[in-house]
């Protein structure tokens, strides 16, 4: 699919999605969940699929987004808009720092360091009552006033959907750009990339920071739509849930991550996913996809489409020509 057609198709699908969830408050709840998961999955996708860097601190980045919004709303409601750049900055600096410390080590070191950071942040949220409200979190989060306009719930959700579309489209553009090529090349052959002059470590750090910024947006959407934050929304479980979305959807395009988020919410209706056999099924499914169908759902669809088209083309060839 050409880039322009991909953009038009996905935009139409996004608008369709928005119109569909408009119809009930319940669907809007589920829609919000899709937006939050999709943003988190996209944040994970960027360093993971492009650079091969697995970070497991996404619960922390989302928490930073949500809690910075909550704290601004509580302490400085007039400056609520300022929460956006502040939270993004905090996340990006942390992500860059974690990437920097492990820049010469293996991907396993990065995974462990980020996982520990995510766990430490959750502990901090639970135990620092004065700042984070402890186990009960922070409530009564206000809606920001954007140039005199106070968006209602539907508008916020609409903005969220547009955000997903914009970011997925931007990452799709990045994949084919020179920076995207450099990222994917260093993942497979660091030797070749470095010898060509690509600053490989800096590139990985950049991708990690950008991914964390996207995940921070997810936390903000969650806090603004729900009007409250709870520490237990940001446990390491969230990371596992989100990690498997890009894999299930397919790593070849960022839309795989979005599809993964949609599929997970559609199959669980937003219930706690890890009750009962759901989690096990999900984990096994992911392992299976990794092992036997690495292209994921979207990859499978694309292959099917190609085969159908070939089939039609073959059918159209007149008999005598064979």
């Amino acid at each position, binding site marked *: 699919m050409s880039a322009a057609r991909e953009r038009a198709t996905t935009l139409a699908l996004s608008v369709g999605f928005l119109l569909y969830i408009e119809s009930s408050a319940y669907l809007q709840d589920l829609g919000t969940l899709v937006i939050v998961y999709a943003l988190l999955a996209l944040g994970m996708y960027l360093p993971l699929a492009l650079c091969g860097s*697995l970070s497991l601190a996404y619960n922390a980045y989302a928490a930073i987004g949500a809690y910075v919004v909550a704290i601004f709303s509580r302490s400085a409601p007039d400056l609520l808009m300022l929460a956006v750049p502040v939270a993004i900055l905090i996340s990006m600096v942390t992500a860059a720092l974690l990437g920097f410390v492990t820049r*010469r*080590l293996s991907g396993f070191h990065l995974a*462990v360091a980020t996982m520990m950071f995510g766990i430490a942040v959750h502990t901090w949220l639970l135990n620092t009552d004065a700042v984070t409200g402890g186990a009960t979190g922070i409530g009564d989060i206000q809606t920001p006033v954007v140039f005199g306009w106070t968006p209602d719930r539907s508008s916020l959700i609409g903005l969220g959907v547009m955000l997903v579309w914009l970011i997925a489209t931007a990452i799709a553009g990045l994949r084919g750009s020179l920076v995207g090529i450099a990222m994917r090349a260093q*993942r497979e052959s*660091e030797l070749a990339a470095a010898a060509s002059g690509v600053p490989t470590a800096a590139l990985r750090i950049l991708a990690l920071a950008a991914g964390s910024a996207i995940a921070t947006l997810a936390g903000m959407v969650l806090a603004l739509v729900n009007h409250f934050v709870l520490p237990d929304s940001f446990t390491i479980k969230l990371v596992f849930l989100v990690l498997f979305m890009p894999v299930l959807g397919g790593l070849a395009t960022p839309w795989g991550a979005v599809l993964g988020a949609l599929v997970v919410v559609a199959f669980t209706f937003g219930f706690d996913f890890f009750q009962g*056999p759901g989690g096990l099924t999900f984990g096994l499914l992911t*392992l299976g996809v990794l092992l036997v169908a690495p292209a994921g759902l979207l990859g499978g669809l694309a292959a099917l489409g190609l085969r159908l088209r070939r089939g039609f083309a073959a059918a159209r060839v007149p008999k005598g020509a064979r």
Partner: protein
Amino acid sequence: MELSLLVSCIETGAFYGLVGLGYFLFLRATGVVNFAMGAYVMFAGVAYASFSENPTTSLGLAIICAVSAAVLFAWITEDGILRPMALRVHDEFGAVMAIVALMFVIEQLASLAFGARPLLGRELIEGTAVIGGLAIDFQDLLAVAVTMAIFAVVAIWLKHGRYGRMLRAVGDNEHAARSLGLPVRRVRLVAVLVTGLICGVAGLLAAPQAALSFQSHLSFAILGFIALVLGGVGTPWAPLVGGMLVSAIESASARYIGGFARDYVLLALALTVFSLRPEGLFTIRVRA
């Protein structure tokens, strides 16, 4: 009082060291830092605790079930996941992802099979020894003794054993080892199964100490990994030193800062080690 603290610190350190030794062997054999290993330990521990809860179950049966589960997981990791994956993916990415997925699968399996409630295992041996006026449970002595024995056996095996010696060659350069005609696949598998065995025993030793739940594996995985990195991979004894260090730092921080600080202190410790002394400790699969 102080002395009993020391005993528990040594015992915890021995446990971390054991998990670190598991990492060490697995890394040597496959080049993969297998943090699903915490899940092997957890599964064995929770399984043992669950079986031994029923006073009529024989301990022997519970032990065999628990340890074989850990060995089975190790085998699945190597033959079911890592080797097929290596055929297809050229970078370490596939292995990292698969290990994370596996860790999650084992966690969920444990919660389905044994429930979410934390379980405390029965002591392997009962009774108390009095040494210099201090009462020490036989269980504690057993844990430390078994750990030391495992380290000694592994060290001797790596130095003099047939597969142990070949493992060093495979770990140094799998490609070269293969072209020398070493049975790389078999050597890897043997080391992986030994890893599973060690994890199973670690689970048995941990289960009577503190109640374990299906979520305990994360901290096992993290602490064992830090023990490995702190100690290094120079000798098989290094993870034991690392484990003791981690345990000492952990209990000092609990004492002087407070229990809540554990996660922060461990994070700081890991980041410090990663930035100051990673090279020389890791020689396999470290980015140039």
